[in-house]
């Protein structure tokens, strides 16, 4: 490679970048930009999504509305988005785990794959915890497995497919005899623990106030890393079972969207996520800091994630 070609390449790159930056500022959605949220009204995803839409609207002056499109943890919403014309007037906000699990389990039936979308970024990383009643006779996964073996199994409250897959994977190795009590959400898991109907269950934020009040204790982090508020509690993986979940809240739009539009959307979104208002809501809703991986890393995260899920949760 000669110097000239290198320089030309560099120059071209710079010009392109400049051009994108310039047009990104000019581009605006034709009509209303819809921020679709893959979860129901009132949850943490919904709360964050609505505030992001509001901040984006204030910062850009675009007409933006947030709407809920529930179903299969975002599968229904992304189905809709994958079928839309790529006009840059819709953004989907979902959580990666349900999407990845459905792609692995029934990819042939789904009308989309990872290439059906252009990715815009993430807003936060969720922390999923396995917790137990404060008076439960065990403190970690090993104790829990032992207790389950000695007591003819153990009911565990769960509210999403990844949680069940995770415990099934542990159960398959340990032969503990877990019984899965399906619920409609983390708050209901806590209710069953507090009511004494189950000893253990999953929480993604709902458990924190009960940790503080001393009604529950944390058994393990279901993520790949320990949680920031409980640095002494092991992950499931550290406890010797090679499984974990890593939920991210991410944004995507229909594949094939005009690069100018993509750049503008990405920028608008990252500006909004960088705002104090969104940071505060993210903190309130998930107990973690806002985290935007940016378009490329988000895509890579999903591609790697699907491979991971295939390995971790293989039947």
């Amino acid at each position, binding site marked *: 490679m000669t110097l000239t070609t290198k320089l030309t390449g560099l120059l071209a790159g710079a010009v392109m970048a400049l051009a994108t930056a310039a047009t990104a500022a000019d581009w605006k959605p034709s*009509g*209303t930009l*819809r921020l679709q949220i893959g979860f129901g009204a009132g949850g943490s995803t919904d709360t964050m999504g609505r505030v992001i839409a509001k901040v984006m609207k204030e910062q850009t002056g675009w*007409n933006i*509305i947030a*709407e809920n499109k529930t179903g299969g943890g975002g599968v229904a919403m992304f189905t809709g988005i994958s079928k839309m014309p790529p006009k840059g007037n819709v953004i989907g906000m979902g959580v990666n785990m349900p999407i990845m699990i459905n792609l692995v389990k029934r990819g042939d039936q789904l009308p989309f794959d990872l290439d059906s979308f252009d990715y815009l970024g993430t807003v936060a990383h969720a922390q999923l915890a396995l917790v137990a009643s404060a008076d439960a006779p065990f403190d970690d996964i090993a104790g829990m497995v032992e207790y389950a073996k000695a007591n003819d199994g153990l009911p565990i409250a769960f509210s999403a497919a990844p949680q069940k897959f995770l415990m099934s994977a542990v159960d398959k190795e340990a032969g503990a005899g877990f019984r899965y009590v399906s619920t409609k959400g983390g708050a209901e898991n806590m209710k069953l623990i507090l009511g004494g109907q189950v000893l253990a269950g999953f929480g993604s934020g709902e458990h924190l106030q009960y940790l503080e009040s001393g009604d529950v204790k944390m058994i393990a982090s279901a993520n790949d890393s320990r949680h920031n508020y409980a640095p002494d509690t092991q992950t499931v993986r550290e406890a010797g079972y090679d499984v974990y979940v890593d939920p991210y809240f991410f944004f995507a739009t229909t594949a094939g969207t005009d690069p100018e539009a993509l750049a503008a959307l990405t920028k608008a979104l990252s500006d909004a996520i960088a705002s104090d208002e969104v940071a505060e809501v993210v903190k309130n809703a998930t107990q973690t800091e806002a985290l935007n991986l940016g378009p490329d890393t988000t895509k890579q995260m999903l591609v790697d994630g699907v491979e991971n899920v295939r390995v971790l949760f293989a039947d």
Partner: protein
Amino acid sequence: MSVTADRGAGAVISLFGLVLYFGVIPNFVEAVDDGWVLPATIPNAVAIVLIVCGILLILKPTTHRPQRMIEFQKAALYFGLLAFGLLAMSYLGFTYTAPVIALVLMLLIGERRPLWLILGVAVLPATIWFLVVYVLDRALP
């Protein structure tokens, strides 16, 4: 056994239950190996109840009589209008189709007074448009 509305309905429902049990559920409900309530448990129970109750209804019908045919036809006409209107709306949008739907609907009902027609065709869609787009800040279909 005379043919009554209930006997007809019972036959249709039993048949539907059979199709559900043998055709639809095996094909559109996933089989899983473990669980307390399988995905197919409730749908299968419903299908069996429909088959049995449909047959019972044929054997023991009530005196219920549906309305006259002309009313069914009129209802079908309005249903068709709405269905067609929706189809049009999915291509052309609310702004263009709503006044037309309102006009046809009001004419079918028998409204001929120009003032009310104008209210339905112009003022009504405009009010909805204002309410949704400006006040509620949402998108119209």
